């Protein structure tokens, strides 16, 4: 069965890029445009990986990771945050919240796939 990935980003173009890349590689992808929507989706169904942007309205990516980690089903699910080069601080915030790792923006499709392959 195809691995299911939850992709969270408030930017439609980034979501499309992620969606297109992952679907092309045979993953199943569900999308959310902010943390609140992602949390709702994640509560309803299980996913194999969460990919989330950091800066989003309503609920940011770090908070999302922390909220997800509190759910029993998401204790061990890999979670990656999408972050920019400059934000070492965000990486550490992400780790403290329970993120598995990060993908540094900007990334291209092969880089995204290589990183995803590291965790699932």
């Amino acid at each position, binding site marked *: 069965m195809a691995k299911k990935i939850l992709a969270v980003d408030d930017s439609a173009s980034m979501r499309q890029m992620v969606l297109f890349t992952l679907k092309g590689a045979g993953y199943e992808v569900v999308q959310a445009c902010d943390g609140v929507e992602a949390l709702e989706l994640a509560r309803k169904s299980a996913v194999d990986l969460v990919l989330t942007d950091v800066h989003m309205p309503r609920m940011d990516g770090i*908070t999302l990771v922390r909220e997800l980690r509190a759910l029993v089903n998401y204790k061990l699910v890999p979670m990656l945050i999408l972050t920019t080069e400059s934000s070492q601080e965000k990486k550490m915030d992400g780790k403290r919240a*329970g993120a598995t790792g990060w993908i540094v923006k*900007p990334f291209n499709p092969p880089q995204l796939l290589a990183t995803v392959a590291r965790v699932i």
Partner: protein
Amino acid sequence: MTIDLEMAEIAKVFFQESREGLDAMESGLLTLGATADGESINTIFRAAHSIKGGSATFGFAEVATFTHGVETLLDEMRNKVRPITAEAVQTLLQACDCLREMIAATEAEQPLDQGRIASLNGDITQILGERPTEAHAAAPVAPAAAANSAGSAAASADGGTSGWRVIFEPVVDLLRLRNEPTRMFAELGRLGDFTAHADVSRLPALDALDPESCYLSWNIEIAGEIPRPKLDEVFDWVDSHCRLEFTPTGRAAPAAGAQPVAQPSAATAATPAESKAVPPAEAERSPAPAVAAVQKSAGESGSIRVATEKVDDIINLVGELLITQSMLSGFADGIDPNDLDRLRQGLSQLARNTRELQESVMQIRMLPISFAFNRFPRIVHDLSRKLDKKVELKLVGENTELDKTVLEKISDPLVHLVRNALDHGLETPERRLAAGKPETGTLELAAFHEGGNIIIEVRDDGGGLNKAKILQKARERSLVAPDQELTD
């Protein structure tokens, strides 16, 4: 479809999204002075951040580099490191204009206005340099494709090694920190052949063993000319949660390579791993949830974006359908009387359906008047600055819906009316105060339904036109006879 074609399609979404982001930035910047709540500066920052990330991802390096400066400035304002001054807001507004042009030029594959970009960049750099902040120097964002080049450059500095010895001693919390050593070994396997010896000395007795803890550490020997950054990449998600030591094996690396290099951060190797690990207390008080007021977005909720031509096509088709229906109705008058009733019934139902369809299709082209009103905060801001007048703009009935074609036609005349009101209607603050009025004038744009019409009003509380003066001028030029009395 090839990757490039698909990426070009997605880039179109990026352009559209950037324009929307710039609109949000602009209207956010215009309200910053009045109501400086944290959420509006966050919204502005996010819009800039998304444009930077997207432009870098889609390979528009110049847009990304320019936006980086804007984003840095906004980030400082957001974190209250830098005050929000009128000058900075003005520069940011100009940066929005410039970005809008850059996006348009990039989309049309036209050359960018380098002079303007450089001058605004200079303004931003100047604001950023006004007080020393931590060397955040405008590190240009490299397009995605170039991201790895730094790694290979650093690799050659290492000289060639024929392999590495790696000591990997994770904290017992490794698994709870969601890092799975087997995945890291899989990653290592992609770099070269390796052997890993597990060190079981930390393993407790079975009854004391916690299945979610990681008691093992490893001595790894990996063969091959592997650049050091590649190894770092494997461990970069965990380097704050373990003791790591990298030693080149085989051919010695030149210069500093003679003695073992303990890295990535010297502190990591020198001190016990546990001390480097994040104390739980700190994790508790990491950033407060930024759940803030739900964004208000005029007319955005549940909306769809449809190309106007498609809607026009549907409207034409519905028109044709109406004609066919009425032709059939007329035709029904002259046929077999027995079937007539059923036919009439069917036709009247068709007539009703068609009418309803037409109404709902027409509805698609209706847009809230905020689409026309939204440009006015910026126009009023710029113009009142230029004229040294203080103006508060009030928008009323922004959700009143108008046909898109009408909306497009009234937009320019409205601009004219608003300019007139600012130029000739509203007085300077001094004259207003002298006339016993509040210093700040009010300009109101209102739209509402009245008796089947939609009324759009532009109203100001200024002194209006000087009738005596105009009449005098008109008489001087003999446009009005000296003894002629005119009504208002």
